[in-house]
């Protein structure tokens, strides 16, 4: 009986092609990044690439600038998206399904075309390539991705929490800060994570809309690979540092959303 069962096809085998693809195209590249990061130009093991990352003033400035523009753009986008989501989730707008769709639609239009359109408009109003133009570009590009998770949480929120807060004597402002905002935190976190890290790679926007001083770290990494004699070791070490940042941001995000998920004790959630 047992021997017979071993011969029987197991449905898990359907995942094998995907596992093979993941091993070759996801795991092996990560190993290669690691190998190149610790490999000198002569092929020997070295920490030089990392030393270079942490002593090169230009790279450190770029990393700082990246975090700066990512934080600033994300914060601006969050405020606007939250206001729009809050309004869309309130009456009478809640009933107008098409209205919310209008705000999400740009998600399906090629982002480079949208940036091109935005750049043309800004040029008409007289805003040329600058730091703030790049920030506007980021906000414009990521807006639907920030809006969607916040809107989804707000529109599905159990209104009895808000009614209870009002019944217990809280004014609208208190209700917003003590009830609505904490309850919408999972959407906020997911919106932030859809924007903050991706900005690190958004060198297309900074190069098309920003001035010479506006840059993200993705531009640096791309430049290290763009020419034939690219510095793969340095690029890999830098990517490895980025991997660590991604990991930290993810951990912080998870911890935050787990903590806030506990807020409505005894509720449906």
């Amino acid at each position, binding site marked *: 009986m047992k021997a017979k069962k071993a011969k029987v096809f197991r*449905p898990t085998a359907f*995942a094998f092609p995907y596992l093979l693809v993941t091993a070759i195209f996801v795991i092996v*590249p990560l190993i290669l990044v690691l190998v190149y990061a610790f490999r000198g130009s002569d092929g020997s093991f070295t920490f030089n690439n990392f030393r270079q990352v942490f002593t090169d003033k230009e790279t450190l400035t770029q990393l700082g600038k990246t975090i700066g523009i990512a934080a600033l753009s994300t914060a601006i986008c969050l405020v606007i998206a939250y206001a729009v989501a809050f309004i869309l989730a309130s009456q009478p707008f809640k009933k107008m399904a098409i209205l919310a769709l209008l*705000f999400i639609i740009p998600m399906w239009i090629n982002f480079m075309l949208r940036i091109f359109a935005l750049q*043309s408009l800004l040029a008409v109003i007289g805003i040329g390539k600058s730091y703030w133009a790049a920030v506007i570009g980021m906000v414009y590009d990521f807006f639907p991705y920030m809006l969607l998770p916040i809107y989804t949480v707000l529109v599905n929120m159990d209104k009895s929490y808000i009614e209870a807060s009002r019944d217990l004597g809280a004014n609208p402002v208190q209700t917003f800060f003590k009830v609505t905002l904490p309850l919408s935190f999972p959407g906020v976190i997911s919106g932030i994570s859809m924007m903050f890290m991706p900005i690190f790679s958004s060198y297309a926007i900074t190069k098309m809309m920003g001035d010479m001083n506006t840059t993200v770290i993705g531009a640096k990494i791309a430049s290290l690979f763009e020419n034939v004699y690219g510095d793969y070791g340095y690029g890999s070490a830098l990517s490895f540092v980025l991997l660590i940042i991604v990991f930290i941001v993810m951990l912080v995000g998870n911890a935050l959303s787990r903590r806030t998920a506990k807020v409505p004790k005894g509720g449906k959630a």
Partner: protein
Amino acid sequence: MNKTSSKVYLAIRWAVLLLVLVAIYLPLLMIIVYSFSTSQSVGGSFGDFTFRLYSKLFENTKMLSALKNTLIIGLTSAALATILGTTASVGIHYMRRKLRSAVDTASQITVVNAEIVTAMGFFLLMIFLRDTVKVPVNFSLWWLIITHTVITTPYVILTVTPRLQQLNPNLLEASMDLGAGPMKSLFTVMLPQLAGAMVSGFALAFTLSLDDFVVTNINSFGANIDTISTYIYSGIRKKGIPIEIRALSTIIFVVVLTALIVYNIVKNKKAKKMAKKA
């Protein structure tokens, strides 16, 4: 709240929504309007209303080949991702819990990772395969199709898995117990049930592929292949993007808008039908 203040509140909320909508659509609208003008810059003197840019678009072989590449890469990689992602979802669904969570984590790597790191991981893999393993491969259209398949497959899995969880867990085994082979069971029993989710997964993979820039930019290295994204990027940076791009943009905006509106009408009709049945 008294009546006037609630009216004022409503007016303020409308104003905010309209302001944001104008900010979102004004740039797109301007491109559409100026696609009927031969003015050198958007916002310049409009001149005569003309379809010149549209006829010019069909003479611009570089722009058309960028469009063609974008569609070939998008459709092929989305099809591959749908096949790979759906079979993977079925397989993962029947895995033991520990193994399942390990595979789930692995499939999330490219989703959470910075795109530039994923992109150069692919780049290093190609260098490794070509120069160290000496496989006769190089950066090419096929390489872009493969990389796009790899980055979009996790999204197909994310789309198909919830549908799979709604199905009767014994469906596949019942079919196999009744004598159908695994492939026949997959095709005649599982896939028809997953068809809707597969279509959504395909659409998602397709749009993600169309939107991609970073992976394409790094991995078209030396291959001289442009997609719409890389074409506009290099055009704007070199200050030489032909003005017929406005005609192409307009066509894309209109196609996307029509597709989304039709999709939502069909979806609403279906939902109404379902509501009637229930």
